[in-house]
């Protein structure tokens, strides 16, 4: 059972006079078993929220708090956050030349679990998860994200989520750039994780398309660096029909 609590979070990028505030007081609570969709127009700060929670050095926290089960996430290093149970599926996963997927996955699993996973069960786990995501076994010997197509990168992110079994998973525009088949495969992977256990999911998306596959319990509309409206799944339908225009008008200045 995990609870991620974000309170009055303020985040800026840049330094000194160039500093620019992107998040302007975000309040959000994600509990195990819940799926929250964060929807908003480009530049509203959705990805900044994801990266700030994960601890990307580019972003400066200027106010507020983030806790996981009461522990201060903002005081943790990036790797400590992951070991505490946070996972971020990135929109643009980074290439790591010369590091094979299998080596990377095992190193990560060892770090998360605190000991090397038993070889036999590990190989079996990786194999069956890759099959479920319709990934070629040869994939494991390729270098991390090197030459991967957009769909392969996203499947690889979900594969990591499946194997590392986080308490809270943040999916940053995992649906972007995916064709219908890939979107279905990736969504099914997320749904398996939701069905199996106590994961809390924060699904960040621009479009409602992925919400046809992954049904959210809560929908938050993100505009100008804060949550402008909250509701249930019906809110997504409203956005599908009306878009973000109504919010953009009301928010005045929006973040870049």
């Amino acid at each position, binding site marked *: 059972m995990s609870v991620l609590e974000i309170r009055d979070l303020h985040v800026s990028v840049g330094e000194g006079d160039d500093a620019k505030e992107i998040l302007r007081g975000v309040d959000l609570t994600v509990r195990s078993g819940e799926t929250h969709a964060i929807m908003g127009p480009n530049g509203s700060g959705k990805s900044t929220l994801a990266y700030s929670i*994960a*601890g*990307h*050095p580019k972003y400066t926290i200027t106010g507020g708090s983030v806790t996981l089960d009461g522990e201060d996430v903002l005081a943790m*290093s*990036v*790797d400590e*956050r*992951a*070991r505490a149970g946070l*996972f*971020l599926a*990135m929109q643009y*996963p*980074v*290439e*790591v*030349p*010369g*590091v094979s997927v*299998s*080596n*990377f996955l*095992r*190193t*990560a699993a*060892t*770090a*998360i679990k605190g000991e*090397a996973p038993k*070889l036999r069960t*590990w*190989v079996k786990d*990786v*194999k069956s998860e*890759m099959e479920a995501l319709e990934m070629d*076994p*040869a994939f*494991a*010997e390729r*270098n*991390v994200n090197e030459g991967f197509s957009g769909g392969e990168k996203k499947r690889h992110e979900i594969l*990591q989520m499946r194997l*590392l079994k986080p308490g809270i998973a943040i999916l940053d525009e995992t649906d972007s750039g995916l064709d219908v088949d890939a979107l279905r495969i990736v969504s099914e992977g997320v749904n398996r994780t939701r069905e199996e256990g106590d994961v809390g999911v924060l699904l960040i998306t621009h479009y409602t398309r992925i919400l046809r596959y992954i049904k959210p319990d809560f929908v938050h509309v993100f505009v100008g660096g804060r949550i402008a409206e909250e509701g249930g799944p019906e809110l997504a339908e409203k956005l599908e029909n009306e878009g973000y225009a109504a919010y953009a008008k009301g928010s005045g200045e929006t973040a870049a």
Partner: protein
Amino acid sequence: MPDQNAPTTTGLTTESATLAGELFGDGVGTQAGPPAVPAAGTGTAGQAAPGAHSHGGATPTGSPAERFTSIDPDAFGVPTGREETWRFTPMKRLRPLLDGAPSDAHLTWTTDLPEGVELTSVEVGDPLLKGLPEPVDRLAALARQRSGGAAVVRVAKEAQLGRPVTLGLAGSGSEDVVWGHLVIEVGAFAKATIVLDHSGLARYAGGVSVLVGDSAQVKLVSVQDWAPGAVHGGQYDAVVGRDATFTQVVVTLGGDLVRLVSNVQYAGPGGSAELFGVYFSDETQHQEHRLWVDHAVPNCSSDVLYKGALQGEGARTVWIGDVRIRPAATGTETYELNRNLVLTDGARADSVPNLEIETGEIVGAGHASATGRFDDEQLFYLCSRGIEAETARRLVVRGFFADVVQRIGLDALQDRLMAAIDERLGALPALDEQPVEVS
């Protein structure tokens, strides 16, 4: 490929364009014709132009001057260190080679010759030697002159070697300069991998000439795993036959000073050359790799990838990548990339790619060079999966090298080289586990 290493100013010298006059030296005239006696069994590769040796008057064609080559050391004069070709080299540390006397000193050879391979030697004046590309600097000319002939590795035409040819070349610690010349002659349609494995302490000036027969596939691996204090200067030439493939992998780890000049020319159309290299310079080590790919015939390709890391005070690397596409070389495809990872303060990497294009009818030509610190995005990605920063850093550096080392294609050698690199990076706690294959 997008540059992930944001270029920093740390020890960075990148000159994207160099004046042609600077690039091609003072040599004048056109390329000399084919030698009178082609090497037997290699087809067009034996008829390679030996380089520009003619001293006829310059014809103002608008093309850059020819690179000067000669078998006579005195034709080059004694370098001062101000010449374009020597300006990055610490001449004081190279003097033991440049000022070295003729000697009978030699490296200790340990050979593994699979069936289909002959190791022999030729005397000075042998026709085979006359047909080879000529030295491009005084040190290479001295080596050619004083080596007293050459050792010759001959792979019969159409031979398919069951395992690599391995020549272990070990220095004995002698102060005398070892002058050497090795010729590797691979017949048409043959497939061969040759490993030169340098170790021990030596002062070594050695030339390597590779004749790649028509449609042959040749891989040359040269490992410089010298003991501290070794000094190694060498010119590597490859003459690539029609539709042949030549792959060179250079791995420079040891020694005080290593300066390798690798030249490629094509004897017929359809040839392909891949030049890969890794180097790791620690405190005070000078590692210099100069490349010169001369596209003079149509439909050939070249692909250059060199990666280096530097750590410690006075670590120094130099990479010069010259590619010339002559007017006749239509359909050329070439790309060169040099990437340097500066791990500590006090290290300096120079990287100078040069591309001369004299015809518009090419498939593609490009180069890239980046020198920088760690890629923060790679580190963030690994750390965000729970991997500690120190482990992540080692994974990134290890991967940086493995990217090239894995192109050798020989597991035992790759493992040995990666182990040597690991040792210099410190132990990798998370990688001590046995490797996992998922298939």
